[in-house]
């Protein structure tokens, strides 16, 4: 890494962190090496200073253990009452998280960061409560001992021999300020001796062991180093932000191999420490083998992976039938430079069979990757090796099948031995073993191989009914048979396992691919959501609920109606938590694990766009591989939903802009259109009322005519506005009825005759037009508007032609004019609301033609505008054909 420019990804991460920090509250940790160094005291003292500076400080949870000095400090600080709960007769009191959140102070004091909450609390651990407070924007002061830091717990256990139960993940400390509360070991011991350190009676002996001078020195060093390292990380983040140096000085990438083995947890912690020291990113890989894991193994594995995730590792799972190959492939794909594996605790007989021990093969095949073999802890490995290697669960059905086949083939051989020699019978047995290997798992196959060898020897090799084998050839034959049968069985079974693993991997890839394809094919948003629910339910065998926030930002998500799982109030609460905190919650997670289902937030960028909740039909949590697919699903769903949301937002913005433009046009146009006739009327009325001017009858006549025309114009405008409103609000419902087209045209002309008086009007109705099914009133209005439009936009004296004829079985009504025609840029927009052609004559609201379109389409027809070949514009209404009316004719009397 010779590149001195800041890595853009690192920069982005730094910016994101800073942004997140601006919204999040700040965490300050009063950090010490052991109980009794005065962390709570230091925290309270600091809190008093904050309060003196005018900040709103409350005590969320502080345990003073009745120490006088500490009590005195806590005096006067407001306390949020604790949440009391009862568990199996024991009264527990915990911080009331919701009360603190509701109180919304600026700073909350929460003692004992590593505390484990009582059952029934929202989070299993107090540090999660604190993270929630921080996420809500509240600052928090807390206390912590070095032994409770996840990545240091193992070292502390090794130093002191005291097992550490309560730990906090290192990630919980990211971005926190540290204040080291230090005390020389002698003083601490003096305080202990003086009884100033609170210790529960039961733990006294263990704790006294803990406080040995040697231990305390080591713990002190550990605490100092951890605090220093933490400060180092802050500096690193600062340097990254300011592009001072390349982020990962060492250029190392660590990869630790994780398995269900109990030793894995120690491996993970070890790797975290090394990564911290090297300031290197690190990954944890789990190689999924073809053989299935049993339940305790699965939960152990899940714990190890969760531990690695908490400690800041990137998690990778991969499938292979060979651990070594899987680990090395992952290491190469991830560009790992150092590999951490467990050191096998004992001699494994089967290693030779597999071509050397895992460790030897790793070292041999790892090439340029360094391999750390870390010693597994004594006492912890026992559980790992207490189970047989291959016979995972007795495959009872397989053994029965094998037994049946062996019995049948033995019977067959008993018959065949009259015609065939005993050597041929061995071949028949061999055939049956090979066939079996294709049907059942490894165990039954190997059992059948052994059984058939013995049976063959016992029943068909002379001397009969003994295991004694006479000739050297027969011994040779027996041994060869035994080895060949075992090898065949083993190889076939292995092949099958490989195939199964391959199929499994393929299935996963296919599931994701199919899902992506299904989503891509969604017709609309509703379809998309339906597909998400259906596919997630199908692939994970679960009932699915999808919760989405309402339109308004900031509103809680509500379950989508098409969900297959109806969330109860409690589950909705869990889903809401997952949504608010953008973290998985419910079954199989750290938050509200008692919930019925797993609730996964759909996070895109910095925000949650919804929650996917699953209740698995099988009841058991998902295997890591499945969980990985689910995570991929969820990421994809979030992306798709977010894209959809953005698209909608964009459309909303567009609509908004459009409606603003429209209302502006409306105001301009309507104010002009209304004021003009009103001005005419008031003017004319003023003239009529004036005693001097109102004299002549001719002038009066003119004035009255003007008033009438203006009133007509106003009336038409109001009519158009009302029609437009009815159209917009969807209140226009066509009531189609049989109509005489000639009658329709005549009625229309009768209504609009006055306005068309200055044009040469011709009417061309094709003879013998059948009755048409349309809404008379709507169509008349549409035709009127077309005629008025023609009259308004063409010079006086030009022709206007109204025609009606049959066309494609339907009816065509056309209004053609002899005016200048429509410019090319006007044509596509001519039916738009409030659209007025740039060169249009003064007057007109731009509503008439859009009403025509609305009314015609309400009747199932189409309207179009075009320029005529001979000049002028033509507007055409086309109504589709309907069934002809049936009218019985009668003769004249």
């Amino acid at each position: 890494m010779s590149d001195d420019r800041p890595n853009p990804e690192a920069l982005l991460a730094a910016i994101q962190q800073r942004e997140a920090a601006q919204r999040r509250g700040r965490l300050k940790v009063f950090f010490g090496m052991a109980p009794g160094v005065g962390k709570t005291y230091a925290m309270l003292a600091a809190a008093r200073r904050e309060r003196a500076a005018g900040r709103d400080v409350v005590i969320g949870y502080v345990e003073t253990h009745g120490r006088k000095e500490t009590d005195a400090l806590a005096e006067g600080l407001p306390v949020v009452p604790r949440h009391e709960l009862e568990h199996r007769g024991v009264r527990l009191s915990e911080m009331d998280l919701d009360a603190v959140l509701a109180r919304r102070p600026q700073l909350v004091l929460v003692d004992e960061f590593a505390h484990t909450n009582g059952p029934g609390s929202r989070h299993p651990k107090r540090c999660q409560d604190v993270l929630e407070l921080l996420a809500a924007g509240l600052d928090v002061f807390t206390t912590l001992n070095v032994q409770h830091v996840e990545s240091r717990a193992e070292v502390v256990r090794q130093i002191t021999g005291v097992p550490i139960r309560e730990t906090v993940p290192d990630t919980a400390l990211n971005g926190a300020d540290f204040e080291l509360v230090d005390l020389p070991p002698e003083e601490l011991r003096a305080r202990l001796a003086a009884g100033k350190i609170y210790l529960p009676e039961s733990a006294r002996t263990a704790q006294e062991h803990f406080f040995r001078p040697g231990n305390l020195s080591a713990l002190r060093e550990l605490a100092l180093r951890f605090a220093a390292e933490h400060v180092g990380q802050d500096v690193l983040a600062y340097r990254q932000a300011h592009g001072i140096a390349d982020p990962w000085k060492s250029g190392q990438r660590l990869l630790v191999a994780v398995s269900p083995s109990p030793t894995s947890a120690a491996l993970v912690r070890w790797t975290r420490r090394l990564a911290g020291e090297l300031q290197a990113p690190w990954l944890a890989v789990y190689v999924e083998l073809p053989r299935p894991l049993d339940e305790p193994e699965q939960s152990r594995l899940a714990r190890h992976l969760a531990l690695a995730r908490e400690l800041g590792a990137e998690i990778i799972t991969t499938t292979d039938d060979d651990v070594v190959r899987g680990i090395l492939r992952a290491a190469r794909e991830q560009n790992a430079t150092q590999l951490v594996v467990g050191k096998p605790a004992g001699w494994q007989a089967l290693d030779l069979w597999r071509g050397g021990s895992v460790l030897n093969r790793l070292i041999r095949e790892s090439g340029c990757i360094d391999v750390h073999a870390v010693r597994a802890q004594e006492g912890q490995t026992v559980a790992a090796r207490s189970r047989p290697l291959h016979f995972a669960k007795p495959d009872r059905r397989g053994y029965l099948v094998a037994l049946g086949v062996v019995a049948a083939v033995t019977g067959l051989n008993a018959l065949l031995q009259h015609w065939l020699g005993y050597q041929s019978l061995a071949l028949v047995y061999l055939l049956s073993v090979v066939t079996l290997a294709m049907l059942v798992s490894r165990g039954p196959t190997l059992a059948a191989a052994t059984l058939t060898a013995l049976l063959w020897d016992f029943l068909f090799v002379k001397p009969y009914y003994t295991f004694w084998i006479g000739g050297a050839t027969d011994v040779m034959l027996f041994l060869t048979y035994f080895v060949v049968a075992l090898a065949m069985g083993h190889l076939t079974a292995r092949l099958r396992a490989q195939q199964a693993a391959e199929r499994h991997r393929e299935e996963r890839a296919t599931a994701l691919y199919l899902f992506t394809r299904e989503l891509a094919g969604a017709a609309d948003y509703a379809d998309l959501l339906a597909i998400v629910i259906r596919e997630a339910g199908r692939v994970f065998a679960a009932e699915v609920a999808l919760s989405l926030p309402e339109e308004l930002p900031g509103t809680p998500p509500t379950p989508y109606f098409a969900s297959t799982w109806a969330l109860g109030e409690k589950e909705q609460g869990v889903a809401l938590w997952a949504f608010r905190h953008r973290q998985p919650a419910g079954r199989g997670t750290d938050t509200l694990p008692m919930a019925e289902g797993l609730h996964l937030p759909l996070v895109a960028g910095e925000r949650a766009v919804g929650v996917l909740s699953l209740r698995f039909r099988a009841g058991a949590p998902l295997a890591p591989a499945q969980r990985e697919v689910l995570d991929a699903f969820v990421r994809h769903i979030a992306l798709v939903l977010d894209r959809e949301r953005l698209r909608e937002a964009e459309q909303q913005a567009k609509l908004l802009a459009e409606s603003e433009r429209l209302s502006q046009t409306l105001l301009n146009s309507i104010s002009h259109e209304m004021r003009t006739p009103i001005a005419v009327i008031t003017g004319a009325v003023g003239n009529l009322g004036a005693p001097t001017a109102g004299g002549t009858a001719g002038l009066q006549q003119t004035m009255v005519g003007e008033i009438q025309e203006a009133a007509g114009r106003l009336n038409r405008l109001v009519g158009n506005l009302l029609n437009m409103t009815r159209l917009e609000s969807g209140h226009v419902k066509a009531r189609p009825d049989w109509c005489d087209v000639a009658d329709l045209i005549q009625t229309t002309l009768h209504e609009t005759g006055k306005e068309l008086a200055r044009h040469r009007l011709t009417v061309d109705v094709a003879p013998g037009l059948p009755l048409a099914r349309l809404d008379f009133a709507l169509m008349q209005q549409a035709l009127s508007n077309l005629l008025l439009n023609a009259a308004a936009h063409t010079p006086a004296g030009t022709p206007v032609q109204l025609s009606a004829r049959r066309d494609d079985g339907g009816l065509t009504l056309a209004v053609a004019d002899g005016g200048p025609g429509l410019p090319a840029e006007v044509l596509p927009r001519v039916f738009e609301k409030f659209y007025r052609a740039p060169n249009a004559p003064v007057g007109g609201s731009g509503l008439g033609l859009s009403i025509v379109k609305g009314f015609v389409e309400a009747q199932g027809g189409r309207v179009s505008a075009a320029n005529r070949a001979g000049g002028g514009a033509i507007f055409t209404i086309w109504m589709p054909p309907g069934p002809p009316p049936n009218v019985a004719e009668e003769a004249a009397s």
Partner: protein
Amino acid sequence: MNDTPARKPTALVIDDEVQLRRLLRVCLEANGYRVVDAAAGQEGIVAAAQSRPDVVILDLGLPDMTGVQVLQRLREWSRVPVVVLSVRDREEDKIAALDAGADDYVTKPFGTGELLARLRVAQRHAQPGPEPGVFRAGALEVDLTARVVRLKGREVKLTATEYSLLRLFVQHAGKVLTHRQILREVWGPRALEQTHYLRVYIAHLREKLETTPAEPRLIVTESGVGYRLMEEP
């Protein structure tokens, strides 16, 4: 106007717009009516009972009840002719009012001449008395007793349905008839939806009776509502 009534006819105006009531009062009084007015439906029904008007002008949009409700209440005890005032684009309201027993309608905004003509027709049809045996309008002559139709003096052959359609128009000359009213009278109560019969026979009648069938002056279309036989084409 040929027969001046001995006493002034009374017109009841039910409309909530004070300006419109004022205008109608001036206009009607100038044309020989005594005017009573009411601003709401309930008030209008009371006024109708007290002043026994000869004709009612009823606005369909009233504050307390709909015009159609007022009409239904009136029709429970009175056969007074009612002319409805309505806005242009609510054809269904007009039809509902006519079907509920209104005699005619006038669309707002209206000309006073048009309103007065409608009032006269409505009043005339409400008056008891022998039907005139022969109806004349322009070149058309319909002898209802002899069942003979003449156009410019020459007899016109009509089918039975055409004749009963024409007779219905003549009996309600000048009044609007809704599609349903015509269909019920001519084709029977089960033919109320068979509007295509009506269209076809109207076209036939126009073909036989109008001077220029493409521009009918005798049987005119009331858009979306029905037809009207004009007395003075």
